[in-house]
Protein backbone atom coordinates (compact mmCIF):
# COMPACT_ATOMS: atom_id res chain seq x y z
CA UNK A 1 0.00 0.00 0.00
CA UNK A 2 1.18 3.52 -0.77
CA UNK A 3 -0.82 5.11 2.05
CA UNK A 4 -1.89 3.14 5.10
CA UNK A 5 -4.09 4.48 7.85
CA UNK A 6 -4.01 2.19 10.83
CA UNK A 7 -6.61 2.56 13.60
CA UNK A 8 -6.54 6.34 13.54
CA UNK A 9 -8.59 8.22 16.13
CA UNK A 10 -8.92 11.89 16.85
CA UNK A 11 -11.07 13.89 19.25
CA UNK A 12 -11.49 17.65 18.98
CA UNK A 13 -13.45 19.62 21.58
CA UNK A 14 -14.98 16.46 23.02
CA UNK A 15 -16.17 15.31 19.60
CA UNK A 16 -14.60 12.22 18.13
CA UNK A 17 -13.94 13.21 14.54
CA UNK A 18 -12.07 10.05 13.59
CA UNK A 19 -13.05 6.72 15.13
CA UNK A 20 -10.59 3.89 14.73
CA UNK A 21 -10.20 4.57 11.02
CA UNK A 22 -8.23 2.06 8.98
CA UNK A 23 -7.80 2.23 5.23
CA UNK A 24 -5.31 1.65 2.47
CA UNK A 25 -4.65 3.60 -0.72
CA UNK A 26 -2.69 2.17 -3.63
CA UNK A 27 -0.68 3.96 -6.29
CA UNK A 28 -2.42 4.80 -9.55
CA UNK A 29 -5.92 4.75 -8.12
CA UNK A 30 -8.63 7.30 -7.53
CA UNK A 31 -10.37 7.07 -4.16
CA UNK A 32 -13.54 8.85 -3.23
CA UNK A 33 -14.59 9.71 0.31
CA UNK A 34 -18.23 10.69 0.57
CA UNK A 35 -20.16 11.85 3.57
CA UNK A 36 -22.22 14.72 4.95
CA UNK A 37 -20.85 17.90 6.48
CA UNK A 38 -19.05 17.25 9.76
CA UNK A 39 -18.67 13.56 9.09
CA UNK A 40 -14.86 13.72 9.37
CA UNK A 41 -13.86 13.71 5.69
CA UNK A 42 -11.70 16.81 5.92
CA UNK A 43 -10.12 15.61 9.16
CA UNK A 44 -9.18 12.37 7.44
CA UNK A 45 -7.45 14.33 4.68
CA UNK A 46 -5.66 16.46 7.29
CA UNK A 47 -4.45 13.30 9.01
CA UNK A 48 -3.04 12.00 5.72
CA UNK A 49 -1.17 15.29 5.21
CA UNK A 50 0.20 15.40 8.76
CA UNK A 51 -1.74 18.53 9.67
CA UNK A 52 -3.11 17.07 12.91
CA UNK A 53 -1.77 14.97 15.76
CA UNK A 54 -3.64 11.69 16.03
CA UNK A 55 -4.76 10.56 19.49
CA UNK A 56 -4.19 6.97 18.40
CA UNK A 57 -3.13 5.11 15.30
CA UNK A 58 -0.71 5.90 12.50
CA UNK A 59 -0.54 7.05 8.92
CA UNK A 60 2.27 5.87 6.68
CA UNK A 61 3.13 7.12 3.23
CA UNK A 62 5.39 5.16 0.97
CA UNK A 63 6.38 3.04 3.98
CA UNK A 64 7.39 6.01 6.12
CA UNK A 65 5.36 7.48 8.97
CA UNK A 66 3.54 10.75 8.48
CA UNK A 67 4.45 12.90 11.48
CA UNK A 68 2.59 16.03 12.54
CA UNK A 69 4.09 19.14 10.93
CA UNK A 70 7.16 17.40 9.58
CA UNK A 71 8.33 17.09 6.00
CA UNK A 72 6.08 14.61 4.22
CA UNK A 73 7.70 11.43 2.90
CA UNK A 74 6.50 12.14 -0.65
CA UNK A 75 5.23 15.02 -2.79
CA UNK A 76 1.62 15.92 -2.07
CA UNK A 77 -0.77 18.30 -3.80
CA UNK A 78 -3.60 19.49 -1.65
CA UNK A 79 -6.80 21.50 -1.53
CA UNK A 80 -8.32 21.64 1.91
CA UNK A 81 -10.97 24.29 2.47
CA UNK A 82 -10.36 27.80 1.13
CA UNK A 83 -7.18 28.14 -0.91
CA UNK A 84 -5.09 30.92 0.63
CA UNK A 85 -3.78 32.73 -2.42
CA UNK A 86 -2.14 36.14 -2.22
CA UNK A 87 -4.89 38.22 -3.79
CA UNK A 88 -2.69 41.13 -4.76
CA UNK A 89 -0.46 38.88 -6.88
CA UNK A 90 -1.25 37.29 -10.22
CA UNK A 91 -2.33 33.71 -10.61
CA UNK A 92 1.01 32.82 -12.19
CA UNK A 93 3.00 34.55 -9.44
CA UNK A 94 1.08 32.55 -6.84
CA UNK A 95 1.86 29.32 -8.66
CA UNK A 96 5.52 30.24 -9.08
CA UNK A 97 5.76 31.04 -5.38
CA UNK A 98 4.25 27.71 -4.34
CA UNK A 99 6.32 25.69 -6.80
CA UNK A 100 9.38 27.70 -5.79
CA UNK A 101 9.17 26.41 -2.22
CA UNK A 102 10.67 23.14 -3.36
CA UNK A 103 12.24 24.66 -6.49
CA UNK A 104 10.02 22.49 -8.63
CA UNK A 105 8.40 24.85 -11.11
CA UNK A 106 7.50 23.12 -14.37
CA UNK A 107 6.47 25.91 -16.74
CA UNK A 108 5.21 23.55 -19.42
CA UNK A 109 3.01 21.50 -17.11
CA UNK A 110 1.71 24.58 -15.35
CA UNK A 111 0.73 26.18 -18.65
CA UNK A 112 -0.92 22.97 -19.80
CA UNK A 113 -3.05 22.89 -16.66
CA UNK A 114 -3.86 26.59 -16.88
CA UNK A 115 -4.92 26.13 -20.49
CA UNK A 116 -6.99 23.07 -19.62
CA UNK A 117 -8.91 24.99 -16.99
CA UNK A 118 -9.25 28.05 -19.21
CA UNK A 119 -7.03 30.17 -16.95
CA UNK A 120 -4.04 30.77 -19.21
CA UNK A 121 -5.43 34.08 -20.47
CA UNK A 122 -5.99 35.18 -16.88
CA UNK A 123 -2.67 33.97 -15.49
CA UNK A 124 -1.28 37.50 -15.42
CA UNK A 125 -4.35 38.96 -13.72
CA UNK A 126 -4.40 39.50 -9.99
CA UNK A 127 -6.17 36.77 -8.06
CA UNK A 128 -8.47 39.33 -6.43
CA UNK A 129 -10.09 39.79 -9.86
CA UNK A 130 -10.80 36.04 -10.10
CA UNK A 131 -14.26 34.60 -9.55
CA UNK A 132 -14.78 31.87 -6.95
CA UNK A 133 -14.68 29.24 -9.69
CA UNK A 134 -11.44 30.62 -11.13
CA UNK A 135 -9.78 30.55 -7.71
CA UNK A 136 -10.89 26.97 -7.27
CA UNK A 137 -9.44 26.06 -10.65
CA UNK A 138 -6.19 27.79 -9.72
CA UNK A 139 -6.16 25.73 -6.54
CA UNK A 140 -6.56 22.57 -8.60
CA UNK A 141 -3.68 23.64 -10.84
CA UNK A 142 -1.35 24.18 -7.85
CA UNK A 143 -2.25 20.72 -6.53
CA UNK A 144 -1.19 19.09 -9.80
CA UNK A 145 1.55 21.28 -11.31
CA UNK A 146 4.53 19.58 -9.64
CA UNK A 147 3.55 16.05 -10.76
CA UNK A 148 2.74 15.24 -7.13
CA UNK A 149 2.58 11.56 -6.28
CA UNK A 150 -0.35 12.03 -3.93
CA UNK A 151 -3.23 14.39 -4.69
CA UNK A 152 -5.59 15.15 -1.81
CA UNK A 153 -8.63 17.20 -2.70
CA UNK A 154 -11.44 18.36 -0.44
CA UNK A 155 -14.58 19.38 -2.34
CA UNK A 156 -12.54 20.26 -5.44
CA UNK A 157 -15.54 20.98 -7.66
CA UNK A 158 -16.99 23.69 -5.42
CA UNK A 159 -17.85 26.68 -7.56
CA UNK A 160 -17.04 24.94 -10.86
CA UNK A 161 -19.42 24.93 -13.81
CA UNK A 162 -20.38 21.70 -15.57
CA UNK A 163 -17.76 22.10 -18.26
CA UNK A 164 -15.01 22.66 -15.71
CA UNK A 165 -16.20 19.66 -13.69
CA UNK A 166 -15.92 17.52 -16.81
CA UNK A 167 -12.38 18.84 -17.41
CA UNK A 168 -11.50 18.14 -13.81
CA UNK A 169 -12.77 14.58 -13.93
CA UNK A 170 -10.87 13.94 -17.14
CA UNK A 171 -7.68 15.38 -15.63
CA UNK A 172 -8.06 13.15 -12.57
CA UNK A 173 -8.15 10.12 -14.85
CA UNK A 174 -4.99 11.39 -16.50
CA UNK A 175 -3.29 11.81 -13.12
CA UNK A 176 -4.25 8.28 -12.17
CA UNK A 177 -2.88 6.96 -15.43
CA UNK A 178 0.51 8.57 -14.78
CA UNK A 179 0.59 6.71 -11.43
CA UNK A 180 -0.60 9.31 -8.95
CA UNK A 181 -2.82 8.40 -6.04
CA UNK A 182 -5.85 10.67 -5.93
CA UNK A 183 -8.06 11.00 -2.85
CA UNK A 184 -11.15 13.16 -3.25
CA UNK A 185 -13.59 14.04 -0.50
CA UNK A 186 -16.92 15.31 -1.73
CA UNK A 187 -20.63 15.54 -1.14
CA UNK A 188 -21.19 14.76 -4.79
CA UNK A 189 -21.37 10.99 -4.95
CA UNK A 190 -22.44 11.13 -8.60
CA UNK A 191 -19.22 12.91 -9.59
CA UNK A 192 -17.03 10.57 -7.59
CA UNK A 193 -18.87 7.61 -8.98
CA UNK A 194 -17.77 8.58 -12.49
CA UNK A 195 -14.05 8.37 -11.75
CA UNK A 196 -13.35 6.67 -8.44
CA UNK A 197 -11.88 3.19 -8.50
CA UNK A 198 -12.88 2.80 -4.89
CA UNK A 199 -15.18 4.72 -2.59
CA UNK A 200 -15.30 5.11 1.14
CA UNK A 201 -18.25 6.48 3.05
CA UNK A 202 -17.67 8.55 6.16
CA UNK A 203 -20.21 9.22 8.88
CA UNK A 204 -19.61 10.39 12.45
CA UNK A 205 -15.89 9.77 12.11
CA UNK A 206 -16.32 6.16 11.00
CA UNK A 207 -14.94 5.16 7.59
CA UNK A 208 -16.59 2.32 5.72
CA UNK A 209 -16.01 0.82 2.32
CA UNK A 210 -18.78 1.79 -0.08
CA UNK A 211 -20.31 -0.91 -2.26
Amino acid at each position, binding site marked *: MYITIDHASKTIKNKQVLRDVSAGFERGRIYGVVGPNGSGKTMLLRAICG*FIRLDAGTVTMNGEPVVFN*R*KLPDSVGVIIENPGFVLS*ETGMQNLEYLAGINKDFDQEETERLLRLFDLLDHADAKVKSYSLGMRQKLAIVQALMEHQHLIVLDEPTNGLDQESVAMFLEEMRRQRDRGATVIIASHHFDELNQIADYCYAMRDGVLRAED
Partner: protein
Amino acid sequence: MMAWRRIVQILREGNGLRLMLVLMYVAMTYRFYTSGQDCRIFIGMFRAPESYMPSGLESNLYAIGFMVVGVALMLERPSEYLSIPETMVYVRRPRGLPRFLGYCAIVGAYCLFYAGVQLAVALHVVYASPKQLMIGAVCAGWTLLVLALIINLGYLGRNRPYGYLAAMVLYIVPLSYMPLMRWLLESPLGVPNWSVTLGVLTAALIVANYALFERLEII
Protein backbone atom coordinates in the same frame (compact mmCIF):
# COMPACT_ATOMS: atom_id res chain seq x y z
CA MET B 1 8.22 39.64 -1.97
CA MET B 2 5.36 37.12 -2.14
CA ALA B 3 5.79 36.20 1.50
CA TRP B 4 5.70 39.86 2.42
CA ARG B 5 2.51 40.44 0.40
CA ARG B 6 0.96 37.43 2.08
CA ILE B 7 1.69 39.03 5.46
CA VAL B 8 0.26 42.38 4.35
CA GLN B 9 -2.88 40.69 3.02
CA ILE B 10 -3.55 39.14 6.41
CA LEU B 11 -2.64 42.20 8.47
CA ARG B 12 -4.60 44.80 6.52
CA GLU B 13 -8.02 43.24 7.06
CA GLY B 14 -10.24 45.42 9.24
CA ASN B 15 -8.77 48.76 8.18
CA GLY B 16 -12.16 50.48 8.46
CA LEU B 17 -12.49 49.52 12.10
CA ARG B 18 -8.90 50.56 12.68
CA LEU B 19 -9.61 54.01 11.25
CA MET B 20 -12.53 54.46 13.63
CA LEU B 21 -10.35 53.44 16.59
CA VAL B 22 -7.60 55.80 15.51
CA LEU B 23 -10.03 58.72 15.28
CA MET B 24 -11.32 57.98 18.77
CA TYR B 25 -7.80 57.71 20.05
CA VAL B 26 -6.80 61.01 18.46
CA ALA B 27 -9.63 62.65 20.42
CA MET B 28 -8.42 60.96 23.60
CA THR B 29 -4.84 62.10 22.94
CA TYR B 30 -6.01 65.67 22.39
CA ARG B 31 -7.82 65.51 25.71
CA PHE B 32 -4.65 64.21 27.38
CA TYR B 33 -2.56 67.14 26.23
CA THR B 34 -5.22 69.71 27.19
CA SER B 35 -6.35 68.19 30.48
CA GLY B 36 -3.59 69.63 32.64
CA GLN B 37 -2.03 66.21 33.31
CA ASP B 38 1.74 66.07 33.60
CA CYS B 39 2.55 65.59 29.92
CA ARG B 40 6.26 65.12 30.64
CA ILE B 41 5.28 61.53 31.43
CA PHE B 42 4.51 59.62 28.23
CA ILE B 43 0.79 59.04 27.63
CA GLY B 44 1.13 55.25 27.80
CA MET B 45 3.45 55.19 30.79
CA PHE B 46 1.94 54.32 34.16
CA ARG B 47 2.24 57.06 36.75
CA ALA B 48 1.96 57.33 40.53
CA PRO B 49 -1.36 58.92 41.52
CA GLU B 50 -1.70 62.51 42.66
CA SER B 51 -2.27 62.81 46.39
CA TYR B 52 -5.93 63.75 45.95
CA MET B 53 -6.73 60.72 43.78
CA PRO B 54 -8.24 57.71 45.51
CA SER B 55 -6.49 55.04 43.44
CA GLY B 56 -3.75 54.46 40.90
CA LEU B 57 -6.30 53.42 38.31
CA GLU B 58 -7.82 56.87 38.15
CA SER B 59 -4.52 58.55 37.37
CA ASN B 60 -3.72 55.91 34.74
CA LEU B 61 -6.79 56.08 32.56
CA TYR B 62 -4.79 57.43 29.61
CA ALA B 63 -2.20 54.68 30.02
CA ILE B 64 -5.03 52.12 30.08
CA GLY B 65 -6.50 53.76 26.97
CA PHE B 66 -3.10 53.53 25.28
CA MET B 67 -2.98 49.78 25.93
CA VAL B 68 -6.61 49.10 25.05
CA VAL B 69 -6.39 50.92 21.72
CA GLY B 70 -2.95 49.42 21.07
CA VAL B 71 -4.33 45.92 21.51
CA ALA B 72 -7.55 46.69 19.64
CA LEU B 73 -5.77 48.12 16.58
CA MET B 74 -4.04 44.80 16.03
CA LEU B 75 -7.45 43.15 15.56
CA GLU B 76 -5.71 39.85 16.29
CA ARG B 77 -4.25 39.91 12.79
CA PRO B 78 -0.70 38.96 13.89
CA SER B 79 -2.18 35.99 15.77
CA GLU B 80 -4.16 35.12 12.65
CA TYR B 81 -0.95 35.27 10.61
CA LEU B 82 0.69 32.89 13.04
CA SER B 83 -2.07 30.32 13.11
CA ILE B 84 -3.66 30.51 9.65
CA PRO B 85 -3.76 27.02 8.12
CA GLU B 86 -1.89 27.66 4.88
CA THR B 87 -2.24 24.09 3.74
CA MET B 88 -0.93 24.75 0.22
CA VAL B 89 2.32 26.04 1.72
CA TYR B 90 2.65 23.63 4.63
CA VAL B 91 2.18 20.57 2.45
CA ARG B 92 5.34 21.68 0.63
CA ARG B 93 7.30 22.97 3.59
CA PRO B 94 6.35 22.27 7.21
CA ARG B 95 5.38 25.22 9.31
CA GLY B 96 8.33 26.13 11.50
CA LEU B 97 10.38 28.65 13.42
CA PRO B 98 10.49 31.27 10.61
CA ARG B 99 6.72 31.69 10.88
CA PHE B 100 7.00 32.24 14.63
CA LEU B 101 9.89 34.66 14.24
CA GLY B 102 7.82 36.47 11.61
CA TYR B 103 5.03 36.83 14.14
CA CYS B 104 7.45 38.18 16.78
CA ALA B 105 8.86 40.65 14.26
CA ILE B 106 5.36 41.83 13.28
CA VAL B 107 4.22 42.37 16.84
CA GLY B 108 7.53 43.95 17.87
CA ALA B 109 7.49 46.31 14.91
CA TYR B 110 3.88 47.22 15.59
CA CYS B 111 4.56 48.08 19.24
CA LEU B 112 7.59 50.10 18.21
CA PHE B 113 5.56 51.98 15.62
CA TYR B 114 2.56 52.54 17.88
CA ALA B 115 4.69 53.93 20.72
CA GLY B 116 7.08 55.67 18.32
CA VAL B 117 4.41 57.73 16.59
CA GLN B 118 3.05 58.88 19.91
CA LEU B 119 6.53 59.65 21.17
CA ALA B 120 7.05 61.86 18.13
CA VAL B 121 3.79 63.64 18.92
CA ALA B 122 4.79 64.01 22.57
CA LEU B 123 8.22 65.39 21.70
CA HIS B 124 6.56 67.88 19.39
CA VAL B 125 3.95 68.99 21.92
CA VAL B 126 6.05 68.84 25.11
CA TYR B 127 9.32 70.67 24.77
CA ALA B 128 10.78 69.59 28.11
CA SER B 129 11.98 66.19 29.36
CA PRO B 130 12.67 64.31 26.11
CA LYS B 131 14.60 61.62 27.99
CA GLN B 132 11.75 60.98 30.40
CA LEU B 133 9.32 60.80 27.48
CA MET B 134 11.52 58.32 25.65
CA ILE B 135 11.88 56.08 28.69
CA GLY B 136 8.11 56.21 29.14
CA ALA B 137 7.57 55.29 25.48
CA VAL B 138 9.94 52.33 25.80
CA CYS B 139 8.09 51.11 28.89
CA ALA B 140 4.66 51.59 27.29
CA GLY B 141 5.62 49.94 23.98
CA TRP B 142 7.27 47.05 25.77
CA THR B 143 4.25 46.59 28.05
CA LEU B 144 2.04 46.49 24.96
CA LEU B 145 4.26 43.77 23.52
CA VAL B 146 3.90 41.72 26.71
CA LEU B 147 0.12 42.13 26.66
CA ALA B 148 0.03 41.08 22.98
CA LEU B 149 2.05 37.96 23.82
CA ILE B 150 -0.30 37.08 26.67
CA ILE B 151 -3.34 37.55 24.45
CA ASN B 152 -1.70 35.40 21.78
CA LEU B 153 -1.34 32.57 24.30
CA GLY B 154 -5.13 32.58 24.61
CA TYR B 155 -5.48 32.68 20.83
CA LEU B 156 -3.16 29.74 20.28
CA GLY B 157 -4.78 27.83 23.11
CA ARG B 158 -8.15 28.43 21.40
CA ASN B 159 -9.34 30.23 24.51
CA ARG B 160 -9.22 33.89 23.57
CA PRO B 161 -11.28 35.33 26.47
CA TYR B 162 -8.79 33.91 28.98
CA GLY B 163 -5.94 35.54 27.09
CA TYR B 164 -7.61 38.94 27.31
CA LEU B 165 -8.56 38.36 30.94
CA ALA B 166 -5.00 37.40 31.87
CA ALA B 167 -3.59 40.44 30.05
CA MET B 168 -6.06 42.75 31.73
CA VAL B 169 -5.38 41.36 35.21
CA LEU B 170 -1.61 41.51 34.73
CA TYR B 171 -1.84 45.13 33.67
CA ILE B 172 -4.45 46.35 36.13
CA VAL B 173 -2.95 44.78 39.28
CA PRO B 174 0.22 46.93 39.39
CA LEU B 175 -1.84 50.01 38.61
CA SER B 176 -4.20 49.27 41.50
CA TYR B 177 -1.64 48.14 44.05
CA MET B 178 0.52 51.11 44.96
CA PRO B 179 3.43 49.29 46.68
CA LEU B 180 3.92 47.22 43.52
CA MET B 181 3.79 50.29 41.31
CA ARG B 182 6.37 52.05 43.45
CA TRP B 183 8.62 48.99 43.34
CA LEU B 184 8.39 48.91 39.55
CA LEU B 185 9.53 52.52 39.38
CA GLU B 186 12.55 51.94 41.63
CA SER B 187 15.99 51.33 40.15
CA PRO B 188 18.14 49.45 42.67
CA LEU B 189 20.18 47.76 39.91
CA GLY B 190 20.75 50.88 37.89
CA VAL B 191 17.82 50.09 35.61
CA PRO B 192 14.18 50.44 36.60
CA ASN B 193 12.53 47.35 38.01
CA TRP B 194 9.88 47.54 35.31
CA SER B 195 12.51 46.89 32.63
CA VAL B 196 13.77 43.77 34.41
CA THR B 197 10.20 42.59 34.98
CA LEU B 198 9.22 43.19 31.36
CA GLY B 199 12.40 41.47 30.16
CA VAL B 200 11.72 38.35 32.20
CA LEU B 201 8.06 38.32 31.17
CA THR B 202 8.91 38.77 27.49
CA ALA B 203 11.39 35.88 27.50
CA ALA B 204 8.99 33.58 29.36
CA LEU B 205 6.07 34.51 27.11
CA ILE B 206 8.05 33.97 23.92
CA VAL B 207 9.00 30.48 25.11
CA ALA B 208 5.40 29.73 26.13
CA ASN B 209 4.03 31.04 22.83
CA TYR B 210 6.49 28.97 20.82
CA ALA B 211 5.64 25.85 22.81
CA LEU B 212 1.94 26.35 22.08
CA PHE B 213 2.62 27.23 18.44
CA GLU B 214 4.57 24.00 17.98
CA ARG B 215 1.57 22.05 19.20
CA LEU B 216 -0.98 24.03 17.22
CA GLU B 217 -2.66 21.84 14.64
CA ILE B 218 -3.14 23.06 11.09
CA ILE B 219 -6.92 23.28 11.16
